[in-house]
């Protein structure tokens, strides 16, 4: 059975762990370099990108994880995870893992009062309409040509894939649907 790790510095970790169990993989909290020897894929959960990014820097994890991803470790970033994976962040200079050729805008929709739910079909992931939950979410402003755009909501890119890297602005772990987790499992 495959093992997928959830980066557990801060954020909605337990929600992803529960989903992973539901789709039939071993789920593991990942917090140190040693934990990486046991995983076939990594989820970077929603949370605050500034907090997660800082903890990764302070505990010498940033360069290490970047190397793992460059060497092919499948990775999926939800919300804050998308920001951590982006090579460019349009409204700040600081970047984090910076492995994916996308430019994202943080808090692109505004404050919590602008958080919303919608539904969309993402044909590459699932034949079903998927519930999409956006919480103070980012979106992708622009992407290089070899980034595969998976979903667009209101003219903004909200899901994309580049080789072993998947990003979503929204939170499949907060819904009753398992399709995106099944898709990521197939990537691992």
């Amino acid at each position, binding site marked *: 059975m495959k093992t997928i790790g959830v980066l*557990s*510095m*801060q*954020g*909605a*970790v*337990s*929600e992803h762990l529960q989903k992973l169990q539901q789709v039939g993989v071993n789920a593991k909290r990942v*917090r140190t370099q040693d934990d990486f020897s046991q995983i076939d894929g990594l989820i970077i959960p*929603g*949370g*605050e990108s*500034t*907090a997660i990014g*800082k*903890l990764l820097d*302070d*505990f010498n994890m940033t360069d290490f994880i970047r190397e793992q991803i460059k060497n092919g470790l499948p990775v999926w970033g939800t*919300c*804050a995870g998308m920001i951590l994976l982006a090579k460019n962040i349009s*409204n*700040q200079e600081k970047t984090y893992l910076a492995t994916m050729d996308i430019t994202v805008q*943080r*808090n692109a929709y*505004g*404050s*919590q*009062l602008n*958080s*919303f*739910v919608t539904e969309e079909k993402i044909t590459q992931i699932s034949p079903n309409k998927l519930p999409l*939950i956006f*919480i*103070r979410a980012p979106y992708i402003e622009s992407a290089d040509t070899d980034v595969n755009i998976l979903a667009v909501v209101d003219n903004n890119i909200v899901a994309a894939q580049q080789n072993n890297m998947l990003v979503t602005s929204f*939170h499949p772990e*907060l819904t009753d649907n398992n399709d995106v987790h099944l898709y990521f499992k197939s990537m691992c």
Partner: protein
Amino acid sequence: METRYKLNKNLAQMLKGGVIMDVTNAEQAKIAENAGAVAVMALERVPADIRRQGGVARMSDPKMIREIKETVSIPVMAKARIGHFVEAQILEALGIDYIDESEVLTPADDVNHINKSAFKIPFVCGARNLGEALRRIGEGASMIRTKGEAGTGNVIEAVRHMRTMTNDMKKVQSASSMELMHIAKEFGAPFEAIKYIHENGHLPVVNFAAGGIATPADAALMMQLGVDGVFVGSGIFKSGNPAKRAKAIVEATTYYDDPEKLAAISENLGEAMVGINIDELPQEQLLAQRGW
């Protein structure tokens, strides 16, 4: 409104494993963000100063809240007085991310809490036990925190409140379904909410610790007792080196069950805030007793 309530609970889920810090101006907010806070709580005076200076403590100046909002990219929370629904309306109009209906401010209503279901913006409320938590959730709170005893730098009350909540939940879980209505009556909690606890064994919303957390070890203690994250009030900006202490408390909240890391994190942080023995406080100065 049901979708909105779910989204509001979801934002609290994103804050898990993180530290929310009290700040009284934009400069402190920036220090908090740089230290790795997941959100800042804007208030006029930190609880330790409210306690010392006395007088009526109210919602902060909207100008200060706006400045903080412009300065940081993380969620901004602010406090409204218990029952003061107009302060809550004003905070909602400011477009912040969360309101804390807080016992740290002087209550505006000695009977009723705000009808939080009438708002689009999410609320966090304090609780000392399960019944109180479920009453607040019944009113529409989408996040709970232990009350602790704010502004004391003494963690004993936060521990007491968390242990009480855990024991209350165990009692509800192990009761037979026939006993639930009696428990609802005894706890003064909505029956449906008691039923939820009976079936799920945890609160339907995220639960943080607050009130008296002053060191990385305090934060880790509360995490090991089962809270989802921590609020730190006076503990940071009333200490000798706020930036360093803030960073250490953030790190301790992540590595809460790794004593070796906690030892390194706790080293050489400068002076902690001066604590108060709660037994020495006169009854009327206990903030946790505000709210019901």
